[in-house]
């Protein structure tokens, strides 16, 4: 089961937030991937110089012929800058995947499900939520999501709608740089656990410091360390 590079065409591109762009790529996979997995992308300059990066898949795994990536523009980002400013529908890039067998969720692995995301760390969690809504809407799930400002909340409309319409799903959103802003703390975690019950699986994704802080708070709150899976940017 070697992972080979394939050419994938960008079929759609749209701003998701002021800093995040949604790119849809036709990958033509014939089998579902697993919610939480990522792809490696490779860009090649005319002189042969190449750069590679990894991006989580945001879309539901049940539509594997086409995937959505949500790419945050980083300051001086060599690859994210290309995806933000240069790439357009019709362009092709090289890609391989799906990759990753630890930060993945399949319905039927037990419930409830606790998802904790910081910033664009919400992306693989979105794939899990979309998978849950389609395939296992009875699994109780809660997303604890920390973003800087309301504008920077990825998939805001969708998450609010799911919170309103899906009986088993609750969104707890904290904004760190809004007026009266706060960070997720022990009280927030306690509130989430009280609302959800003891999670069978917890997935935490975000920047390094965010994931460290969140997983420590979760362990302190009594969530078994072995039930917590983490994924970090840049690492």
């Amino acid at each position: 089961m070697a992972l080979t590079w394939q050419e994938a065409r960008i079929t759609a591109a749209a701003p998701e937030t002021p800093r995040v762009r949604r790119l849809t790529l036709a990958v033509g996979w014939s089998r579902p991937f697993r919610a939480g997995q990522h792809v490696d992308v490779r860009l090649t300059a005319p002189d042969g110089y190449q750069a590679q990066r990894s991006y989580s898949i945001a879309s539901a795994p049940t539509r594997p012929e086409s995937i959505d990536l949500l790419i945050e523009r980083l300051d001086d980002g060599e690859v994210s800058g290309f995806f933000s400013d240069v790439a357009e529908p019709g362009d092709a890039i090289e890609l391989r995947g799906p990759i990753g067998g630890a930060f993945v969720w399949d319905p039927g692995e037990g419930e409830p499900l606790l998802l904790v995301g910081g910033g664009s760390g919400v992306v693989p969690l979105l794939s899990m939520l979309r998978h849950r809504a389609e395939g296992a809407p009875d699994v109780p799930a809660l997303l604890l999501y920390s973003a800087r400002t309301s504008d920077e909340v990825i998939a805001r409309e969708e998450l609010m709608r799911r919170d309103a319409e899906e009986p088993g799903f609750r969104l707890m959103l904290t904004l760190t740089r809004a007026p009266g802003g706060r960070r997720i703390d022990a009280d927030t975690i306690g509130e989430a656990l009280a609302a959800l019950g003891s999670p069978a699986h917890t997935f935490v994704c975000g920047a390094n410091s965010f994931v460290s802080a969140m997983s420590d708070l979760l362990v302190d709150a009594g969530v078994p360390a072995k039930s917590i899976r983490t994924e970090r940017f840049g690492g």
Partner: protein
Amino acid sequence: MVTRGFTGRRPPRPEAERLPPGQYLTDDFPVLQLGPTLRIDLARWRFTLREGSKPLKSWTWAEFEALPRTRWKGDIHCVTKWSKFDTAWEGVAFDDLLAAAGIAAPTAYLLAEGYDDYTTNVPVADLTGGRGMVATRYAGEPIPPDHGGPARLLVPHLYFWKSAKWVKGLRFTQKDEAGFWELRGYHMHGDPWREQRFTGD
């Protein structure tokens, strides 16, 4: 395949020559692990060499700290594409562990085992001759828990998933047995200069 509109930002030459294919340089020290950072009580810490399930030699923390020390400084490479230059480690070389146990390596392969039940396979030949150690200090300080302290394997010439965090022992195996990531499609050897990221690379 040339990507339309991509020019890239090439690192300066001395840097480029130290970067394996597909890697970029970071000044941070990113953390990559499956779950929360482990909290390990040094009073209960043990490091054990095993052949299969049979223990060959075990050390307490104090005993381990008394073993001969080795220092290594150089570059490390993570399969998630970052590389970090000039990292400084100190610990006990694999050769010195065997000597202290009074044994020769009983097989040609082993699995490093972590307190978090993580495993990864490393051929003995990649650890001998000063190529691998069990590190207990980073940049002159005890290794922080986020980076695998109190002790982690260090095999810096392989992708860093081979350098198991929170290592509790090495288990010699008759054949090359896949560990956690290797069972999930990652390469059995993981040489960054040959870009052995995944099975078949």
